[in-house]
């Protein structure tokens, strides 16, 4: 019998040590792209970020002596995400209320849950094609509305599934206490359950907004792009993400530069929204 205090066999020790090192090494490898992306965006974007870039329209291609910016793209992104939020937040939250408070484990609720999960995993480009079929083709026009609609379909499952989770985390004793006072479903849900789950609901809404702000695929053939200001929701609209896509493949270096500056701007918006959602979640 081996002595309990004897050291491990060298081969075992070596194996344990090398696996540990390998695991750590692979994790570090995974973080290299993250660091590289952040470094590139900041080092290439920051020099080109100025008051002009935030307040001016994109300069015509090839002109270098006029102010160059993407204010219209910021406005377009904000407007389309706002349209998307106005559609998806109420619909998603009401769906979540149905699933958590009324449907529960019923066959219909399980079906809705499955369908919404499927939708959450659908490729965003397919959502864009869907919006194209619903709005662009019938109205024969690319529009901010179509872009906002596409983003809303993208946000809907994220809002619905995450909100259901936070509603389900409200202890049932709170619902019972409200019902025992004679409050109906509507009052119990709105005043007690939602109030209690609010940080979670805000978190899910912010995460969905962060995700939609950075999406490109649903916009390239719904909202398209525009060199000018957003004048009508029924016309094409610029957006930060499509600007990055278009200008990344441009032969003009000043447009490439603007793409980097826009990427930095977009990354800041997305990360701030993301961190804000984590902060709200931690406040519960």
């Amino acid at each position: 019998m081996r002595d309990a205090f004897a050291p491990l066999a060298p081969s075992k020790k070596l194996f344990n040590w090398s696996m540990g090192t390998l695991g750590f090494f692979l994790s570090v490898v995974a973080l290299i792209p993250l660091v590289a992306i952040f470094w590139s965006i900041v080092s290439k974007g920051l020099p080109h970020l100025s008051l002009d870039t935030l307040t001016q329209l994109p300069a015509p291609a090839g002109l270098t002596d006029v102010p160059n910016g993407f204010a219209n793209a910021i406005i377009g992104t904000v407007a389309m995400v706002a349209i998307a939020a106005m559609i998806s937040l109420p619909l998603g939250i009401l769906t979540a209320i149905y699933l958590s408070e009324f449907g529960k484990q019923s066959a219909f609720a399980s079906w809705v849950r499955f369908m919404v999960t499927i939708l959450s995993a659908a490729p965003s480009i397919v959502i864009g094609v869907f919006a194209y079929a619903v709005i662009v083709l019938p109205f024969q026009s690319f529009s901010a509305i179509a872009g906002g609609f596409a983003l809303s379909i993208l946000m809907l499952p994220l809002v619905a599934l995450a909100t259901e989770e936070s509603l389900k985390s409200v202890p049932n004793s709170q619902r019972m206490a409200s019902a025992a006072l004679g409050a109906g479903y509507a009052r119990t849900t709105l005043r007690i359950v939602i109030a209690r789950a609010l940080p979670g609901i805000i978190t899910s809404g912010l995460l969905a907004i962060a995700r939609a702000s950075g999406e490109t695929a649903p916009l390239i053939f719904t909202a398209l792009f525009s060199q000018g200001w957003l004048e009508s929701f029924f016309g094409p609209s610029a957006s930060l993400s499509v600007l990055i896509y278009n200008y990344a493949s441009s032969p003009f270096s000043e447009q490439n530069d603007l793409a980097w500056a826009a990427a930095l701007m977009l990354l800041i918006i997305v990360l701030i929204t993301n961190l804000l959602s984590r902060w709200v979640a931690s406040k519960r």
Partner: protein
Amino acid sequence: MGFAVAPSTESSSLLTSSSTDDSLENAGKLPFLRTLLGDGGFKSLTFVAALIAGAVPFFVVALISRDAWPAIAKFGLPFLWEQDWNIDESIYGALPYLFGSLVSAFIALVLALPIGVAIAIVTSERVLPPWVQIPIAFLVELIAAIPSVIIGLWGVFVFTPAINPFQEFLYARFGWLPIFNTQPFGSSMLVAGIILAIMILPTIAAISREAFLAISADLRNGAFALGATQWETIIFVTMPAAISGILGGATLGLGRALGETMAVTMVIGNVAGIDFSLLSPGSTIPSILANQFSEALDPLHIGALMYLALVLFLITLGVNSLAIFMIRFLSRNA
């Protein structure tokens, strides 16, 4: 004693909705909305919302099918294995794009799976102190928050030039292998695959991590009690127990890779054709949709693109359903 028993006429109306009984003085009317909505109205409202949300995937399939109909009627199923895509002659076949989607997603999976599982182990098992585990898990999750188009931008201007010497090396040393037998010029299937691997890594890592965390401490302690070392336990005990979660995460990652658009479109080269060399440029279903949709005018061209989108949706639907099934299977067994 308290109060007199209510007369029967009043008491019978006490509990019904027609009751006007009011024991509190100075009572005003309730807010109009609450009276209007009531419980039944509220429940119906949420039900209608759930019905709409649940029906969206059907609308997606129905409307895309409707607009794809000219192409479906003309080309039928052979669309899937025809190779030509010629807008001028109105001939459309999906094979090069299907091929490109499958190959790039497969490369991504091969690269991301081992790294994703390694991250899952390192961040869930007791191999590292928590102050290292938590930042690693957080940073890997952060990758998922970066917009695809930004990764594409980085891919075009930074990653592709940086990786090209490696592609040259592969061509020079392993050019005799069919998968490396073309002269690389930057954009390629391989570059797209690596970019996709970066993007699906958080999915695989997060779901595998949950699978590891779901394994009960008893199982692990049992192995330790038998004298197994940390990593022997991980490889022979916890990993087999977590396998369905790991595979579920991998399948979900595959679904993401198949549908990923922007970053791939920006680095794959967008050349239609079937070339088995990973160093040659290619094209995927999402990339051709991104490239051609905004300029498509002919109903048959739009139809063919819609047909592609439908095929993509159904493939990802199948892959994701499989993934959901596997992940649920895991949670039932754990």
